[in-house]
């Protein structure tokens, strides 16, 4: 196996991946993001953690804010965010595939 290329500087964190995965479905404001992530990943991202990750994603151009609706500002994933999410999940899927394959070999 050849060594991998170095990661791009804006590789999103795992929390960022959770947020991007949520926004891949539809635009959401902070509380909707919290509840959706809790539902699909079983994790409660606390408010400060969520906004810390959101601010990084926004400064990296991976998400963008939309005009506020009743004080709540929704966010949506950008095309760059979709590409980053796709790349990251593909890599993780490959790691999961290899890991599960090796575990299965050990179980024989």
């Amino acid at each position, binding site marked *: 196996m050849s060594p991998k290329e170095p990661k791009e500087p804006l590789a999103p*964190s*795992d*929390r960022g*991946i*959770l947020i991007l*995965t949520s926004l891949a479905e539809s635009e959401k404001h*902070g*509380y909707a993001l*919290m*509840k959706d992530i*809790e539902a*699909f*990943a*079983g*994790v*409660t991202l*606390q*408010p*400060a*953690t*969520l*906004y*810390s990750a*959101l*601010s990084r994603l926004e400064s990296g151009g991976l998400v963008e804010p939309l005009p506020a609706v009743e*004080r*709540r*500002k929704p966010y949506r994933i950008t095309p760059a965010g979709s590409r980053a999410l796709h790349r*990251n*999940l593909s890599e*993780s*899927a490959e*790691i*999961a595939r290899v890991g599960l394959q090796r575990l299965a070999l050990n179980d024989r």
Partner: protein
Amino acid sequence: MSTRRAIRLMIALYPRRWRRRYGSELEDLVLEAIEHRDSSTTVVLLNLVQGVANERLRALPASAPLIAVALAGVVTMTDLGLREGRSSTPRASIASILRAPSDAPAFTLRPRTRSIGSVQITLDPLTGAAVAVTGAPANVVIDPGTDQPESVTQRSSH
């Protein structure tokens, strides 16, 4: 002190630029999370301490590595505190997104890193302990493999 006042006080400690952009949104979300009983006030306040340290770390100039190491310690300690305070079992992982079997252990594979100017701190993804530091000044030592605040020490110069 009322909860709202404590929250506002914590948010006031964020770097000005960050606070102006996200402060009111964060305050609304914190109050909403408490109102819906998604989080206890203690957990939310501890999380805000961590958030302040995180954003202060991010805003630090490269010429302040010692402050950076101290703030990294706050982030690590509050992270460990929040782990203790979680009410539900954390299952966050890429594996869960990929719908791994429910009986399979879900974990983060990559170590987390914090960059503060020229200093790069690598944290163990499971324990939050500093496992590697590069670019730190010669008089700063972080013992690898420990998660105690005492592990960050300043070597006396002789």
